[in-house]
């Protein structure tokens, strides 16, 4: 993987920094955050350097940060609120509307960005758990988006698509992988203590309630009881992601304050 990441950089850059950069990557337990940061760094090297020594006025740059993860988690939480509430009103896909599709796509994309941006410290102590928390929903997102695209294309969420499976069921598989990824991320964060444990707990409870809500909506629970996990999921799962995002932005601000404190 390190060789592959290095090859993304310009040859001139590799000639100057390649050896020492490879040594840093070997020494570091790489997580989704680091890999995304290296990908953005390679893009920056292509745009910025074009040749070492040629001082560029290129002022913008690309870097992964806790702040990006924090904002993505908050945006994801808002999208999840719209998606879960919309789905409940929609009665489990009986009449799929485009805005619900946009909310699901928004929630999926933002959650994946958050899983990358907030995973830096968890990956050092729990690399397998952190990679699984990102990889499972990433694969599920592709599957899920295929299902939702099929709903939009066919205009029917219950039509048989593949082997008796409806687009809505494919979309739901994507949703479940996002929930599973969120749970794994909550566990990794709880164990690493890198962000708020309250937020981790809320996210884990919210994820459990989403599963219970899907279970209840399938008719496994009598209707007066089934509403409880549905309402709980609509509130707790988005709240968990928003709390995680706020916690990340707080850590980021404390870092900035420490920097300014060191200067005074």
């Amino acid at each position: 993987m390190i060789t592959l990441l290095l090859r993304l950089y310009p040859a001139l850059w590799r000639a100057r920094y390649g050896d020492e950069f490879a040594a840093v990557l070997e020494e570091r337990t790489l997580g989704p955050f680091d890999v995304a940061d290296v990908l953005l760094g390679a893009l920056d090297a292509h745009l910025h350097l074009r040749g070492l020594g040629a001082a560029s006025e290129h002022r913008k740059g690309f870097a992964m940060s806790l702040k990006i993860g924090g904002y993505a988690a908050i945006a994801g939480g808002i999208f999840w609120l719209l998606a879960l509430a919309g789905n409940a009103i929609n009665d489990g896909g009986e009449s799929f509307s485009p805005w619900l599709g946009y909310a699901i796509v928004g929630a999926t994309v933002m959650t994946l960005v958050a899983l990358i941006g907030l995973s830096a410290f968890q990956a050092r102590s729990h690399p397998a758990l952190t990679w699984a928390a990102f990889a499972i929903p990433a694969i599920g997102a592709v599957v899920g988006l295929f299902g939702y695209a099929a709903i939009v294309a066919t205009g029917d969420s219950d039509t048989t698509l593949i082997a008796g499976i409806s687009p809505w069921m494919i979309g739901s598989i994507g949703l479940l992988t996002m929930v599973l990824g969120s749970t794994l991320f909550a566990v990794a964060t709880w164990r690493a203590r890198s962000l708020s444990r309250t937020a981790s707990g809320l996210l884990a409870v919210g994820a459990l309630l989403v599963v219970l809500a899907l279970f209840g909506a399938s008719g496994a629970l009598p209707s007066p009881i089934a509403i409880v996990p549905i309402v709980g999921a609509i509130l707790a799962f988005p709240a968990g992601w928003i709390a995680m995002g706020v916690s990340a932005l707080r850590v980021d601000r404390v870092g900035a304050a420490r920097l300014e404190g060191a200067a005074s």
Partner: protein
Amino acid sequence: MTSPIPELGRFAEPALLILVSLSDGPKHGYAIMTDVEAGTGRPMGPGTLYAALARLEERGLIEALRPVDRRRPYRLTAVGAGVLAEQLRDLAAFAELGLKRLGRSPG
């Protein structure tokens, strides 16, 4: 407050963190990353580190030393130390102004 470490755009803050890390002596890339993370509590990715190192070296604020086992240490140049000191004084003055307006004493 003057602009932080001129012409570094998005990398001005990582660059400042790197300069502070090198202010007590030369360090190689991995040591800079761990030092910055320990000091700020915020992660610094390897891509960001080397994007900022390249810019700092290009502007003569740091210089590379002879590598030891593929790890190349960097140290502040005299120009880099001057720019860092100026930047930190600006930050201190800005922090003091903010605290004064809040009615709180510095430190």
